């Protein structure tokens, strides 16, 4: 753990292509202006986009698919390798792990997916306008939580192992090819890129309060902001679907006592409605507020971790143009 390997850009490209024979490899590839995870093969391993801000899909989709039979899970033939996950998403996994790997009610399917995946995150050198990880003390690069973190300069990729699984992966799949060499530290070219991205984000988010201050503002806001902002909301649930930490789901029954777990959200009407008709989140405004309370107050209080990692996807995804950051700044 904590080893740094250097590998040439060309060798890495070739290596990622060959991995697809024994793994399902996913990495961000740009299509029609959208960056999203794509299945990687020798043919497209050169198209992987590194070190740019988050792919459209959050990392959670690999561990909590939109729809999954949880009583008869499909047998996965190959293990997964995910390349290029941004640090905001890696940070989000902490909360998912706390919920799904709870001591008393351990979700074995989630666990298996986590164990069968090698997670290779990558630094963000280019950021999106809505990125604001630093506001919540998340750096635009990972140093833990992933198995390996990938940094790049013009000549090399640098692989920083952050877990024993990461070490094993390097030993089993890279060492034998004699393509990677250990180095003592990341070069200044990488540190400069990291610093530059961090500075950009700090400048951009200078007016945005940190997570504790945000929690206070959200908690103390009575009624107004939620109802005003939600008047534009159409309850489409996009903000939750693309959120790296939103995990709520619906259990659907199928014959033979099979159960299908399907991604759900508190933004949908009737999310909390009971058969008798009571519905604590009946009002659009109360559903809207619920999401903010959950992200900034309840989940952090309950699990001692962030529930918004500042990826900014919810801002980009909102078809009504509601900006979570504008709202938080207005709550001052």
């Amino acid at each position, binding site marked *: 753990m904590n080893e740094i390997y250097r590998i040439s850009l060309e060798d890495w490209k070739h290596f990622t292509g060959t991995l697809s024979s024994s793994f399902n490899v996913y990495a961000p590839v740009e299509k029609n202006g959208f960056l999203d995870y794509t299945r990687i093969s020798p043919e497209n391993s050169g198209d992987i986009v590194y070190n740019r801000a988050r792919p459209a899909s959050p990392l959670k989709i690999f561990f909590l698919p939109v729809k999954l039979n949880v*009583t008869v899970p499909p047998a996965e033939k190959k293990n997964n390798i995910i390349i290029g996950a941004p640090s905001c998403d890696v940070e989000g996994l902490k909360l998912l792990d706390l*919920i799904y790997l709870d001591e*008393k009610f351990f979700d*074995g399917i989630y666990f298996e997916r*986590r164990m069968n995946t090698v997670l290779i995150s990558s630094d963000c050198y280019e950021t999106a306008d809505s990125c604001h990880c630093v506001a919540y003390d998340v750096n635009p690069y990972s140093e833990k939580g992933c198995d390996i973190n990938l940094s790049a300069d013009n000549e090399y990729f640098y692989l920083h192992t952050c877990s*024993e699984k990461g070490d094993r992966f390097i030993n089993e799949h890279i060492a034998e090819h004699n393509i990677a060499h250990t180095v003592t530290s990341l070069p200044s070219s990488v540190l400069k890129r990291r610093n530059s991205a961090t500075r950009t984000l700090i400048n951009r988010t200078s007016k945005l309060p940190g997570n504790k201050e945000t929690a206070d503002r959200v908690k103390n806001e009575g009624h107004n902001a939620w109802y005003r902002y939600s008047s534009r909301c159409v309850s489409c649930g996009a903000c939750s679907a693309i959120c790296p930490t939103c995990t*709520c789901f*619906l259990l659907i029954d199928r014959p033979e006592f099979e159960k299908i777990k399907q991604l759900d959200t508190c933004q949908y009407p009737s999310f909390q409605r009971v058969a*008798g008709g009571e519905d604590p989140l009946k009002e659009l405004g109360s559903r809207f507020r619920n999401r903010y*309370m959950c992200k900034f107050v309840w989940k952090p209080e309950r699990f001692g971790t962030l529930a918004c990692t500042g990826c900014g996807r919810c801002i980009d995804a909102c078809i009504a143009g509601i900006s979570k950051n504008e709202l938080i700044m207005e709550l001052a």
Partner: protein
Amino acid sequence: MTETATRTDTINIYKVVKASLEEVIEESPLIRTLVLRPERPFTFRTGEFIELTLDGIGEAPFTPSSSPQVSDRLEITIMKTGYVTEKFHSLKPGTVLGLRGPFGRGYPVEKFLGKEILILGGGCGLAPIRSLLYALEHVSEHLKKVILCYGSKTPSDCIYKPLFARLNSLDKFEAYRTVDKPEPGWDESVGVATVLLEKTDINIKNSVAVVCGPPVMMKFGTLKLLEMGYSDDQIYLSMEKNMSCGVGKCGHCMMGDYFVCKDGPVFTYDEIKEIPDIWK
């Protein structure tokens, strides 16, 4: 994620235990009790709930109404109120159902020992209470007194009719009923459930109160108990919400930072009084 975690032999938390329906008891026009025989012994603590699945149709949470001392037979009392409950009402003996659980935190009976227990129930809320009463009967030598106050809309809506005479025949137990709308022949109280509380002779200092019923009764019952002098932490409430997964993950039953399915459904009023909209 810690890599030391190597649990692969875990029980699938979404899989059911099968149980066959032995008998359907009609308690009232809207309420029936399903008597189930689980395929293996099924133990629970009173007040904990289960998820009951009708194969391919749906699943819903219920707190068993039977004695926690019995593990080969489980009684679930269900009010017909929505799609799944209507289907449960139409079942015939022999049907195979699915059970998950038990889940949540039930009644802390050990904390009730040595005390006078005032129980306020309404409508189908008497279901979890009946299970509690069985549990209390089991430890009655360590209790001072148990008073049950139960309200329903009409005399025909009263459930567990034989229960009241039986409780009144037991040492230390008293049971009272009231209805909103009396019918000819009704000689017990008339009015909402809280009217019965005024008639009780109880030493509040050495007492706990338990409330289970429809939200409006829970609210006014709690307010009445507070007015009588009960403190916030002496009042135990069954905060039944949309407990869907039962295992603290799906989010449907979140009430503030509580997962009702894991942290409840039984809460003291003290634990939840700051949360907005708890009675909805």
